[in-house]
């Protein structure tokens, strides 16, 4: 059954890539760079979801002092960091195609770069503390501090400072302006990427639980 799911996911991702190339139309003014939306948007969303989950499990740890919650927080932070790197790289390719340079310090580029820094600092903090309980409490603290700055980075900064970045998928009137076929491919691609990240999460969690069991024994 698991093997079937893995091959199913591979086929799904191949179909989503094919649909992004053959089925969805090109967006006005973006030309061929439209294709980069299909990996870029899903990994950017997964970045935010992963960091939100990391903060959630950090708060759970601070309430319950359960090291499993800390392990989940750490895993989601690391996976969020991977998604953040992918979003940064795909965004840089888009910037090169549209604006002529890979990096312009556009407010959205700045935001995603700072997210990378924040969660790289989180991972570094975890390596600087040896004791498990202390590491869990202090990194949970940092995670909560980090997550309160994230809304300012993602939602406030790009709206205060001038940005070249195309409008978000949902505009300020709360309406979706992306064409139906493009939106379908974005959603399909998002589902595929989400499945891959959940799969990685489960593998990491099994390893973390084994480590915790070994520590207890």
């Amino acid at each position: 059954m698991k093997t079937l799911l893995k091959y199913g996911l591979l086929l799904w991702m191949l179909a989503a890539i094919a649909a992004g190339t053959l089925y969805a139309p090109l967006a006005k003014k973006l030309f061929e760079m439209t294709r980069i939306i299909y990996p870029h948007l899903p990994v950017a969303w997964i970045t935010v979801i992963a960091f939100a989950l990391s903060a959630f499990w950090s708060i759970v740890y601070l309430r319950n002092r359960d090291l499993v919650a800390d392990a989940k927080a750490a895993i989601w932070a690391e996976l969020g960091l991977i998604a953040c790197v992918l979003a940064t790289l795909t965004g840089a390719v888009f910037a090169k195609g549209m604006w002529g340079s890979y990096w312009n310090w556009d407010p959205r580029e700045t935001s995603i770069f700072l997210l990378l820094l924040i969660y790289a600092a989180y991972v570094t903090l975890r390596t600087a503390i040896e004791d498990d309980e202390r590491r869990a409490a202090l990194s949970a603290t940092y995670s909560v501090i980090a997550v309160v700055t994230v809304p300012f980075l993602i939602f406030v900064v790009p709206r205060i400072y001038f940005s070249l970045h195309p409008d978000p998928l949902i505009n300020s009137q709360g309406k979706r302006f992306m064409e139906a076929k493009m939106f379908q491919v974005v959603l399909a691609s998002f589902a595929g990427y989400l499945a891959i990240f959940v799969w990685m999460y489960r593998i990491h969690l099994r390893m973390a639980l084994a480590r915790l069991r070994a520590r207890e024994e």
Partner: protein
Amino acid sequence: MKTTFLSRSLGVARKDWLAERRAQSGLASTGLFALVTLAVLSFSVGPFGAGAELQAALLWIILLFSGLSGLSRVYIREVDSRTAPHLKLLAGPLETLIGKTLFNLWLLVLVELMVVPLFLVLMAPKVRDFPVLLATLALADIGLVSVSTLLAAVVAQARTRGALFSGLAIPVLIPLLLAAIGGTKAAFGVTPDARTHLVMLASLDAVLVGVSVFLIEPVWNE
């Protein structure tokens, strides 16, 4: 003698100020760091080499790095001199946090009293709106100090400290720094809209102070 929450918080701040005055090295090194940075910038850029936009950014870079060089000491000193258990007996985590935050705020204000007038003389930006500059400094100080003090408590318990403190603090302080630079630009007449930046600073202050109060107990009791 019965003590109140406020008197215990102020007692912690007073204790830190006395320790700082006795050691004398902390404030002096922070002030020297700020002066050297300002001198290097002034030497390399000069009063006419940078526009008001760049000057606003330079002012905050000096203040941020000078502040970070001194603000982490409050908790590290307690751990290194093994006075943390005694302090925990005398004051609760929140009282200790408030006392140390007040002390750090005082330290930062002292640095600013030295750096900002010198910056205005050496870099000669045209300040169009002094109240906006003062409001920006005051609001940014609150956020900067509250995050730095909490992170000082975190870093005090880690193996590597100096570099780690800056590595942890700067990324979470960047939104605050962006708003502070925006407010300073408005005070220098680059942009007309100071209100947006001041509102962003005030809301960041509210969030960061609230989070510090919420998180200090698990950190300090660890």
